[in-house]
């Protein structure tokens, strides 16, 4: 039974690690996206003047 639990645990750990990596990357992307969009806004405001 230990082997079965080990197998399922390893699968869960691997998938969670991958999903965790996706989540971290998403957060980074969102931060950068917001930052860039505010810069873009600044640029267009300055160009409009």
């Amino acid at each position, binding site marked *: 039974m230990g082997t079965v639990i080990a197998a399922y645990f390893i699968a869960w750990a691997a998938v969670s690690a991958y999903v965790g990596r*996706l989540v971290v990357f998403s957060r980074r992307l969102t931060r950068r996206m917001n930052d860039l969009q505010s810069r873009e806004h600044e640029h267009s405001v300055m160009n409009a003047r």
Partner: protein
Amino acid sequence: MRDHTRLAVLVPCLLPAAMALIFWVAPTEATMGEVQKILYLHVSVAWCGLAGCLGMGACGAMYLARRRTAWDHVAQASAEIGWLCSTLTLVTGSLWAHEAWGVWWTWEPRLTSSFVLWLIYAGIFLVRAGIDDPHRRARTGALLSVMAVCDVPLVVVATRWFRGVHPVTPDMDPRMRAVLLATVAGFTGFFVMLTLLRCRQLRAADRVAELEADLDVDYGFSGERA
């Protein structure tokens, strides 16, 4: 972009349901006892690993034909998930082999071809990571994926001629078969959802890279590396 939130919430619920089925509903097998329950996990991830390879190859072919980056995103996402599943197949298979056959590894046809598939996936990732230009990366990845898809059936055939036959599913208790199908469906749905989410993320990364280029800023997103 379609909103996958409902899917993202519903699909993962399939997995605990599958677990419940495996451990409470499926009967224990006579010869191997509890260890046989690895079967449900092993078959599911093995199937997903193969499906990932097929998806990667098909999307690669579509990219070469149409040259739309969306196809490359799906190919890359399929490759990542497929590789993850392939790794899990080898690990769970090895654990099961140790219990059932007494050895961690043997050069059975299925094991050999699974290992070859894993190596091909790893090679494709390494090559993609080494190319900066996104179009060249996509094209190289697509070509290698197409070659991989053509090659894997040949490896299966060759190794089947070479050595005996991997234990094919024997007659199963109908309840076991039902649980197996349910688990495979559950895992497939879960990994398909993950692939879609990863695609969306790759599209967003591309969009960020475009914005960077427009604003002449470099945050290091230009070209998402595998």
